[in-house]
């Protein structure tokens, strides 16, 4: 079994280790970020950039990464697996930028304990670091369902570079693989591996793939496309057990209906679990994730949390857009926290500085990242029968091109969208869903996309209640697959 929580490599990228770990760090306590994934690295860079724009005094920033590779775009692993992208192209920032911004990067190092009273942490290399502010960005772990023989050789998840390397090896040998979970990640993995030479089949519990993200017509188009690409599909298929040979290797999968499928390897793409062990043992309030407030404060003073590891009002976050929002929120909170010597940490009653931008959870959108296949969804797209009666749907179809768009409207507001084939208007629809505006003036042309809709018409009719600062372009480029994983978790 090769999970992502492998022990940290001892190798440390040379360029990240330019600042010697001196004991004076303990004295000059600064901002320490645990986790250099997409949330942690982005936060480090954004905070440092903000500070560099100020001539005021600033706290040093330290970024601690358990993986040897710092700040790569995990979403890009699918194209890496498919051979479309080189791993080096997945880095979010040029590595020199950390140095230029004065960020201390500790890579391949894990945090052992946090002492929230002394405001210090202990690393697995024995070092301790003091912190003025601690940011938890510990991310999540791919979920493994403990089917019988789930530890057999050849059972993988698809989470980090090591997984990619292992899976590509099977594919290059033309092996037969199964993917458990017809979510975004599972489909991406299956398609990528099929392109690389593996013979792939996706095992999905529900009636159609991506059932939480797509409606039936879109899913059918997607399934037809999978079939054209030689990716097999078993829907409404419930795994009974993983079949293992005498050598302890995967040799197949049996379903509850009695069927058995042969396989040389199995990829479990059944969601992620927030990494909360460290937080829990450190006494932070943890539910499914680390509990935070609107300003990313955890239950413990001077400790914050962002990214996939957090829980906010019961919600977990697996997509880039909300994570980036969390980063932005936290930057507003921390950029001059130190200078103002602000002590009003959490207890709910303190006044919030005006410049703090609260994190507001927005409806999420999804985009499938498989070359030549585009699917997008946003907002609410599934309804019970009663609700369905009150929902108006606008559908566009071009059967020959396999284009399908469906917009869900309620009381003349866009509440959900599914796009298949041509997803270029996805961000436009997301924005409309987020803005929750009355689209009556553009209703007749809404289905044709942004080019047909004059937004000034709708803003005239609707007082803008929310000023949204998220960058949609980024949303488009970096949609996370984690939401899917999260949803699949519920399904399982």
């Amino acid at each position, binding site marked *: 079994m090769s999970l992502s929580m492998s022990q940290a490599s001892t190798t440390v990228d040379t360029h990240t280790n330019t600042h010697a770990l001196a004991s004076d760090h303990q004295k000059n306590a600064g901002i320490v970020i645990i986790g250099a994934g997409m949330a942690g690295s982005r936060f480090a860079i954004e905070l440092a950039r903000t500070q560099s724009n100020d001539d005021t005094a600033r706290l040093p920033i330290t970024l601690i990464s358990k993986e040897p590779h710092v700040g790569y775009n995990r979403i890009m692993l699918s194209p890496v697996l498919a051979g479309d992208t080189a791993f080096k192209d997945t880095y979010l920032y040029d590595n020199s930028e950390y140095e230029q911004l004065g960020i201390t990067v500790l890579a391949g190092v894990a945090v052992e304990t946090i002492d929230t009273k002394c405001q210090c942490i202990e690393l697995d290399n024995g070092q301790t670091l003091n912190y003025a502010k601690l940011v938890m960005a510990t991310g999540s772990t791919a979920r493994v369902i403990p089917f019988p023989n789930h530890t057999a050789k050849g059972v993988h998840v698809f989470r980090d570079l090591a997984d990619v390397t292992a899976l590509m090896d099977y594919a290059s040998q033309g092996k037969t693989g199964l993917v458990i979970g017809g979510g975004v990640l599972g489909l991406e993995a299956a398609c990528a591996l099929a392109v690389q030479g593996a013979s792939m089949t996706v095992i999905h519990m529900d009636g159609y793939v991506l059932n939480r993200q797509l409606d039936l017509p879109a899913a059918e188009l997607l399934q037809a496309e999978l079939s054209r690409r030689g990716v097999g599909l078993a829907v409404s298929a419930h795994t009974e057990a993983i079949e293992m040979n005498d050598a302890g290797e995967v040799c197949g999968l049996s379903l509850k209906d009695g069927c058995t499928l042969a396989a040389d390897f199995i990829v479990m793409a059944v969601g992620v679990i927030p990494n909360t062990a460290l937080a829990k043992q450190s006494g932070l309030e943890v539910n499914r994730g680390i509990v935070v407030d609107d300003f990313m404060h955890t239950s413990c003073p001077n400790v914050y949390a962002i990214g996939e590891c957090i829980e906010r009002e019961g919600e977990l976050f697996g997509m880039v857009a909300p994570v980036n929002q969390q980063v932005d929120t936290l930057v507003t909170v921390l950029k001059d926290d130190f200078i103002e010597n602000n002590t009003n940490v959490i207890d709910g009653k303190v006044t919030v500085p005006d410049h703090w931008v609260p994190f507001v959870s927005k409806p999420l959108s999804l985009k499938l990242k498989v070359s030549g296949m585009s699917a997008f969804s946003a907002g609410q797209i599934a309804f019970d029968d009663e609700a369905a009666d009150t929902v*108006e*749907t606008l*559908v*566009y179809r071009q*059967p020959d091109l396999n284009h399908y768009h469906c917009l869900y409207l309620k009381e003349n507001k866009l509440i959900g969208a599914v796009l298949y084939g041509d997803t270029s208007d996805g961000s436009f629809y997301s924005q409309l869903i987020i803005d929750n505006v009355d689209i009556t003036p553009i209703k*007749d042309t809404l*289905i*044709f996309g942004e*080019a*047909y809709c004059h937004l000034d018409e709708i803003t005239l009719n609707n007082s803008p209640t929310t000023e949204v600062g998220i960058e949609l372009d980024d949303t488009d480029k970096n949609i996370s697959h984690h939401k899917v994983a999260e949803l699949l978790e519920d399904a399982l």
Partner: protein
Amino acid sequence: MNDAITNQSAASKVVSANKSNNLPNSVQKTTGHVIETHDISAAKNIKKAPLSSDGDLINSSITTIRTTCPYCGVGCGVLASVNETGVLSVKGDPEHPANFGKLCSKGSALAQTLGTARRLTEPYYQNKQAVMQQHQPMQLGNDFNAIDLSAKPLINQTDWETVLDDVASRLNDTIAKHGRDSIMFYVSGQLLTEDYYVANKFIKGFIGNNNIDSNSRLCMSSAVAGHKRAFGADLVPGNYEDLEACDLLVLVGSNMAWCHPILFGRFLAAKKANPNKKLIVIDPRRTDSCEFADLHLPIAAGTDTHLYNGLLHYLDQKGCQDDEYVSQSLGVDDAVNAAKAWSIDEVASACQVSAESIRQFYECIAATDKTVTAFSMGVNQSQSGTDKVNAIINTHLFTGRVGKLGASPFSLTGQPNAMGGREVGALANLLAAHLELDNVDHRQLVADFWQSPQAISPNVGVKACDAAAAILDGRIKAIWIMATNPVVSLPDADNFRQALAECDLVIVSDCSVDSDTVKCADIVLPAQGWGEKSGTVTNSERRISRQRTLMPAAGLAKPDWWILSQVATRMGLKGFDYQHPSEIFNEHVALTAYGNTHNQSPSNSNKTYPRYLNFSKDLSALMTDEVPADKPVQQLQQHINQNGNQIHTPIALSQQAYEEMLPFQWGGTRISMIDKIKPLENEIINPAATVAKSQLIAITPSDEASVANVHRRQRRQKPQLIDEHQSPSKQELDHDTQPESQAIHLRLITGRLRDQWHTMTRTGLAPQLNQHQPIQTLTIHANDAQQLGVQDNDFVQLHRRYENYEKYESYENDVTSDGIVSDIAISTAKDSNKPASTVMAQVAISDTLRVGDAFMPMHWSNAFASFARVGPLIPTVVDPHSGQPELKNSAISVTPVPMQSFGKILVHPEWQDAVIVQLRTILANFSAQASEEELSETKCEARSKNILPEALPALTWSLSHQNNSVLINLASPMVEASSTLACPEFWQQFMASMQSLSQPNSQERVMHTAFTVDNVQNQLRFIVTKSAPDIDSDNTAINRQVSDDEKPSTQLIMAVYIAPTQKQLPSVRWLDSCFTDTSQIPVNQRYKWLLAGRPASGYVDPGPLVCSCMSVGKNIILNAITQHGCTSATAVGKQCRAGTNCGSCVGQINALIAECAPLAQA
């Protein structure tokens, strides 16, 4: 009278010009030289407009042919240019004395109406019952399953030999079985004089009855009757030049701005030059002609006789009579006495206009010697049409304002050759060459000339409006309809249609597949259309012009004279061996001279046959003194030397001279109205001058003149004749249960639109002519609309109004009674139990109408709309003197039809018929469904619950040709039909059946569809495209999974838009352009743009077309007004060219300026 002398000298010039130029006048090879053309009878010197000044004609590859426009009675000269590739363009002939180079919107669009599209190209037999059923399945109460459409082929093509032999033998059989009177011809003002002549000769001289009537019966037969009463002959008292020379033009019942635009333009030009000239319009509607009027009298429909009696009385009181003229006229005292009752106040009360405006009108007339009263259908198409004509003429005779330059009554004829029909006598009560049918000597003369095998019948034949009755009661067993569409145009149109369904043999010769009458034929014969046929036509001022061949005939189409002659010959009849239309023309000319006592060489016979025109004599004006060697005159020996008598040998034109014939007025330019006037020396004075004795007619206006006509229905049911499928209660329902609470009663006035002609079979093909009013509208006053609860564009249903008809028995026996005959037709028990056709239209609210009046154009037929024929609404009520039906005063009731959904379909012309067939099938299916549902409910419940009347159809549609596609507008009042129409699956199915209908080898075509649908709103957009052929043939493209994005071009086949409101449907201008070319659309945006109906950005919609000639849309004009500050029509014209050609849209432009003026100031 000096004009005539000028004319004669001009005539000689022509010949010399032609002699010096061997090229026939008709076919001018433009060489860059001035083409020598002269007019022999133009009343004034025509400014020569050298053709070489026009760059278009310099090109040596272009052949230019002079011909004559086939639309209205103005008879404009047309220069048709055909380039090497056969592409035709038209412009006004600057030297034609009717139009001097101008053409109206319709004439300008002639080139768009030619070609093989929508043409009949081969003779065929038709399964009449099935085709009629398919063509109009919405005959409520019919059992849709009664006729199995698939049982027999609908059409069986044949060849001319077979069909001509067959027609001949069937006509002979009919005569043998049912007698000579069992055959009827229904002919048309669209025929050429030569066609008319042969038809008339065939039936009157050889078949042996007078059952030939022309659609001119519906057009100007009241004017003919009026002229005959006033002048003793069917002469034309005025000329076009009078319209320019007069000081006052009074238009009565004529929207000249739309219906005779070029002539109106001549008057307006003169008025512009001399603003003292006045225009007064008398019309219940404030038409576009009123835009230029100094006074408009919106009199109640039908009260013209009151107004003109009052005028005669006024003129008498004011001492305006021309003593000399009056002393030579008959009936003056009677007429003046009859008019005495009509004081201005009496008239004001009868006409429902203010006494002040009437006084103003009378004063103006009294003060203006040079008055021309031009009248048209508003006068003629009336049950008192002849009286109206005479009431008008009375005032002219009384004041001596007749036959003088700028002072005359003047009848504007509707059709290009209505006058030609009068000349050859092709009407049931005329003979030929202006001879009298009721004169035995005249009949004998004509029979002699024709060498008829039997005497000509003395009985007036069956007239147009009596035809249905004559067929239904079995008198007529075979009818041959040529070049007209009576199923649409006759009053009680459905009754005539029913008659055709029951007639043993219906032969229809036509050129268009879009004629509803063609669908009712057993045998269809393809006739040549304009541009193919060759012959002569006579316009409103009795000017003869040539229509010439511009292009080869479409398919197997033949000239009407040829078809008739062939059948006659095959029936064994002699005298029909014509080879060329000039032979017929010469024979016609010879007949006008035959025995004409005003010939220079009088007949040996003691009998005299004086008549109004001797064409032969006039024709001599065309000839030189000596016959040139290269132009041998054809001798018509067989006609001339009959009975051993040496009659004057008339001059006959050689074929070449006939080809070269220039427009000229037979009978001279001006006919003297009083026999006393002596001709000047050397003047050709018309013989009519010596026979016509002017007579005033005493007119007694009917008290009920302005009461709208109602359909009559007998009170008693005749149960034995009731169709078993129909229960009596159902019939009652259809007839009597109009939702009275919502219905309002209106008077229906029919008429024409600016850009359409007759039943649109020709103008309907020209995209730009379909822009002006692309849908059938019912124009009503805002007060009526409010009462009805409707707004602009809302749909309404129109119902006939009935009164019970208790005198059935007595009328039944009164078959010959004037004007009442036709009532029998609609009073047969069989008919009265038939439900009336559904008629629907969209409301246009306008203050141009009187409250209580409604206007509906007469153009729409089943070929262009599902339920927009106006004919079924009109009861048959005819003028007792002329037999002309009342078409402008019918009682109707109107109910609102709330529509559940609206739609637009744009379809490639190739698929037009397939779509229409599909729509008709849908309609039938829904109707069948609806009637099943209806049966399951009790009638009472249905009636109380349902606001809509039961007769509502599931779907109504109309179509109009766009530049590159055909636009079909849809609307549905039914919820179920609306949701069906909004289903993409329905249209996918529709597409599949359409494909199998029109494309048997459909597997070769790769069709693509795309759609958007809104589940709640029943909104659908659906696009069908076809890959470009080069892609289809590319095997790799088919085998490979090719994304459409890679394909270079796509052919748009159909675009469907369905929405709950009209404003949710896209504008069609841009979409239409996509039917030729989709390359303007970015490939990845293709379907979105098409479904959206517009490009994503950057496209300016020109808006609805205002100026047809220059293709300028409303938005462009508004832009000129608001952005460029144009404050006059002239300025607008300079800015964007709108209104600079025929000018018939100037009124509309002025209205737009007026509309925008406050905005511009602000």
